[in-house]
């Protein structure tokens, strides 16, 4: 019993060390970080966080990132709902091929699409807007959401759709009032994955923005000033970047577990 506990503690320590180190660094001054190894901040400072919350070039990054992530999640789930319903309920010419093709979109690395998107969005004036990144991320997230939702929808008996039609529900009313509550956990799971992929994706987000819509991850990778690296500030930014993902995971954790059991995740 003690052996098992020990292994568990070692494993968790191993997992937590990088995160601890990030938090540790974010609370130190640059001088303390660069002069020697300290296991905890000897002089705790919140100066790094204050900089981030007051300097528009920093907090603007978070706003930009959250904006395109939110737009992308709404568009992806909004488009995927009717698409997944069609795949789940109707047989149409080439449906299986189309479904597979949607999935295979996910298999290409984003770098492949960086150039065409850059050129296209520059031409139509979308470059450096949150919409550019949000739409680009749809390439990966719509198929993913369709795939997840299709699994959940196919778990709902077709007779429920028919019963609603017999009862006189119009299709939109049935979809919103009867059907969507039945796949609520699927929608939650799909939204979570869209959020996650969009939040962590860096390459497209950086390529398609310059100043006005610059995402936080890009801001972080570019912060090398004349005086060298601002270690403490970067660490604080890193801590704050973990927070939204952790929050979302906390809220959807039950749905995810359900999703593993029922659907496609």
């Amino acid at each position, binding site marked *: 019993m003690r052996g098992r506990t020990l292994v568990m503690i070692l494993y968790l320590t191993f997992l937590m060390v990088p995160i601890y180190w990030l938090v540790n660094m974010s609370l130190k001054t640059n001088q303390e970080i660069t002069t020697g190894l300290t296991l905890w901040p000897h002089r705790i400072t919140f100066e790094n966080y204050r900089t981030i919350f007051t300097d528009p070039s920093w907090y603007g990054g978070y706003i930009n990132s959250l904006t395109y992530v939110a737009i992308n999640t709404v568009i992806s789930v909004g488009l995927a709902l009717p698409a997944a319903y069609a795949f789940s309920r109707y047989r149409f010419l080439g449906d299986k091929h189309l479904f597979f093709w949607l999935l295979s979109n996910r298999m290409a690395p984003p770098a492949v699409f960086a150039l065409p998107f850059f050129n296209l969005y520059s031409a139509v004036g979308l470059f450096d807007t949150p919409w550019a990144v949000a739409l680009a991320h749809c390439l990966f997230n719509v198929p993913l959401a369709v795939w997840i939702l299709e699994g959940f929808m196919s778990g709902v*008996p077709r007779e*429920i759709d*028919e*019963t609603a*039609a*017999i*009862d*006189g529900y*119009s299709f939109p009313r049935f979809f919103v009032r009867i059907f969507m509550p039945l796949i609520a956990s699927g929608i939650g799971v799909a939204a979570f994955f869209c959020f996650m992929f969009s939040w962590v994706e860096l390459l497209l987000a950086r390529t398609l923005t310059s100043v006005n819509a610059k995402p936080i991850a890009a801001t972080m990778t570019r912060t090398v000033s004349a005086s060298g690296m601002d270690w403490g500030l970067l660490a604080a930014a890193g801590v704050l970047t973990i927070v939204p993902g952790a929050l979302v995971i906390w809220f959807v954790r039950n749905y995810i577990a359900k999703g593993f059991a029922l659907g496609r995740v």
Partner: protein
Amino acid sequence: MSLVLEQVSKIVGAETHLRDVSLTLERGSLNVLLGATLAGKTTLMRLMAGLDVPSSGRVIADGRDVTGLPVRRRNVAMVYQQFINYPSLSVYENIASPLRVAGLPRAEIESRVREAAALLRLEPYLDRKPLQLSGGQQQRTAIARALVKRANLVLLDEPLANLDYKLREELREELPRIFAASGAVFVYATTEPSEALLLGGNTATLHQGRVTQFGPTPEVYRRPRDVVTAQVFSDPPLNTLRAVKQGGALALGTGGEARALGAFAGVPDGSYLVGFRAHHLELDPPSGEAIVLPSTVTVSEITGSESYVHLACGGHAFVALVPGVRRLEPGTTVDASIDPRRLFLFDESGALASGDLAQAA
């Protein structure tokens, strides 16, 4: 309303699900669709409801052609074999749902839902979600939803198949009574001949996508038009055997001989397919004239008050349904007998040649 199907067919890909079905269902009538699984009962109901469009033929409701009209714009109600309710709504909201969609005033909805809930004894559960109920309660919720709507056409697709025995008995008695008052065309699909007989009304027997006979239930049972109808409407399965009539004598397919009496009295010489129901095959010595079939017992099943005795006789397998507990060891020889008045005779094409309706039942 009345519902008329004219030469309705449903073909999906290379498979014919229904072929040339013509039926006239009168206002306020109870109609049973009887047939084995895959006979086309559900397909037929879906066409009646408007959930599917027939490949050819017309569906006419109250003189109006509704063939292509989607189900939303018809006034029908349907109950499925599986318990289909809206899981996210309470039982009350489930029952109220068609009324809410129709935009009825709140007070009217309330009173109709309460009335239906009282009739189906769902009052204590109105605030629960369907999945918190037992199977029987879930199905009663679905029936209540079909009931409140006061539809012109009520379709019940094997509604009691997944329920336990006691509840089936109860609901089977109540259902026709509940819906009778509404004046709707009532259609009930079942695989069980006994259920059709208990419900009464009219019966349409289905076999491989065809309606083999449609008429008042007792009449279809007593005077099946052909051998297929008799087989569909027999449980345990109809016993059959070939017999050749030559003057006053019969040569049986089992190798035996008998005198041509009863059903055979009025038919010309020739070869016939003889059908008889399991409960007419007797194991006790016959009291009057009888066709005797010397048999060997293969299995006997005892169901409490009745016994099913499976017999082998001259290469044929027969089933006898006899009252009481008859524990016959396999291998026992018995002289099974059948009253010749209780036979159905079918000619070469399978059509009924003779069979007295009162006696053969």
